[in-house]
């Protein structure tokens, strides 16, 4: 709450009409965002019909299908169905790897930018932000174009004689991780930048006066102080990576299926199982809410 709406003095020029001012937004988000999420929850407990529709009969089938394999006709003894668990696990691993590499590149970048003089700092921030606003679809397609077997990188390396055969990246896990990393890198830089910008550099100077080396200062003074920014950046990369659709769809193949692709297939693709798609969405949403709640709790604890 402190983040937004807390100026130095609480101004209340529009207090008598605030209810009317907020009402349209409340209604729009309530009806067209919260209600759909509620209906989706209901759908995840319905029975699927054969041609992609649903029957209004309560059932745990969608969640059951997620975890158990009961054979083609559903009459065998249940055994654990690993397909979907593997997809979720793979998505978690991809998202974690993408987050790790974003941090590896993003932290030094954010620190470097935040310690520039004010004038050039804005230019650096602008340069980092622009790719975020550029169409994600076009960015992912561009990445695909770049790393194709006969794409510009492979051709240049072949021409220079560095490699004998093109490096095969498309449809591999590495390509998907690269795509996620590339998609959400700006999300890592910006919150860390904001934290380092607020960081009081005299703390580092005090450390240096006490004969601490640069890297000791970084590890023991700077990192603990800007930790909230780092955690925020990690969440901003991890959350969209986990539910990503474009990177696995365009850069990956059947073996790199992620949650986003699995969900999409239930609605737009051949699988056509709406309750199962709704259930998978609910599970994804629950994981993300859990992450966000952990984050909120750690923030609340940090402020006391």
């Amino acid at each position, binding site marked *: *709450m402190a983040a*937004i709406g807390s100026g130095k003095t609480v101004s209340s020029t529009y207090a008598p009409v605030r209810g009317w001012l907020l009402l349209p*937004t409340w209604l729009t988000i309530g009806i067209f965002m919260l*209600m*759909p999420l509620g*209906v989706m929850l209901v759908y995840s407990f319905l029975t699927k019909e054969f041609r992609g529709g649903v029957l209004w009969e309560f059932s745990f089938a969608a969640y059951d299908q997620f975890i158990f394999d009961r054979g083609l006709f559903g009459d065998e003894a249940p055994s654990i169905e690993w397909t979907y668990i593997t997809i979720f696990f793979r998505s978690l691993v991809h998202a974690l790897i993408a987050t790790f590499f974003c941090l590896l590149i993003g932290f030094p970048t954010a620190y*470097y930018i935040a310690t520039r003089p004010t004038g050039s700092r804005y230019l650096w921030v602008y340069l980092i932000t622009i790719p975020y606003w*550029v169409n994600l679809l076009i960015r992912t397609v561009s990445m695909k174009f770049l790393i194709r077997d006969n794409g510009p990188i492979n051709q240049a390396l072949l021409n220079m004689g560095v490699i004998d055969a093109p490096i095969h990246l498309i449809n591999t896990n590495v390509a998907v991780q690269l795509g996620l990393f590339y998609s959400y*890198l700006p999300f890592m830089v910006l919150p860390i930048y904001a934290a380092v910008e607020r960081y009081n550099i005299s703390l580092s100077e005090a450390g240096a006066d006490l004969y601490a080396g640069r890297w000791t200062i970084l590890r023991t003074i700077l990192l603990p102080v800007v930790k909230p920014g780092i955690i925020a950046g990690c969440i901003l990369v991890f959350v969209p990576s986990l539910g990503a*659709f474009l990177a696995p769809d365009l850069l990956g193949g059947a073996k790199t299926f992620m949650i986003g692709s699995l969900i999409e297939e239930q609605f737009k693709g051949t699988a056509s199982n709406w309750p199962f798609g709704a259930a998978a969405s609910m599970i994804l949403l629950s994981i993300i809410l859990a992450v966000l709640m952990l984050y909120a709790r750690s923030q609340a604890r940090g402020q006391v």
Partner: protein
Amino acid sequence: MGKSRYNIRHYPGFLWITVLCLVLLYAPLIVVMAYSFNDSLSITQWGGFSLRWYHDLFTGVESAKFKRAAVNSLFIALTAGVISTALATAAAIAMVRGGSFRGKTLSFGMISIPILVPEIVTAVAMLIFFTSIGLKLGYLSIVIAHIVFCIPFAYLPISARLQGIESAFEEAAQDLYAGRWQAFRYVLMPILMPGILSGFLLAFIISLDDFIITNFVKGAGMETLPTAIFGAVKQGIKPNIMALSTLLLLFSVFIVTLSYRLGRTNAKNSTH
């Protein structure tokens, strides 16, 4: 202060990582832009500079399809942008100028939901919702979905600017017997306008660029630019798609730059 050993601000290698970061972010975009000017049927061979794919885009076999998609995209982005900006402006005034009240945190949470929920989940929820209430998928379903999704993007710059404007201006107007609406219309709104425009431009570009939600709620036969590009790319990256992508990309950069500039001018004015 000595430069090498005692400059504790400086970490060796950080500059190079920053340069690497920018190269990683921009290289794919620049390569695609360069290849859109390639005078060759093959996307692999460089055949010299030419504008043939831009010409093809506007006059070729697929030009009618892209033109229709572009008109749809612009119409949807304008409608969703205007409506979400209006909603966000009203909400921002209530949040920043409404004093402290119960439900303020909850309201902020509501406004943030569209950003917190993964896009694919929003897309699924809206598709199921529209289908179950019997709304025909098409223009209307896309516009509604975009309005919801754009509200937080319009809200953030508007509320940020509003916090930078002292309430003394409206209070003075009200002391001079201006009604609340007049104080808003003739005093606050002109000062807030750059923030409102900045929010509108961001909402506009978010809507124009959206693929995932649009893909779910568009229904059969309806295409926007991103869904048309996605459909085409599924058959392979063709040079005319690179030309179209380049145009859309440059347009986004232009709109976002404009939005930033507006945000900055406002910040400067309000501190005077």
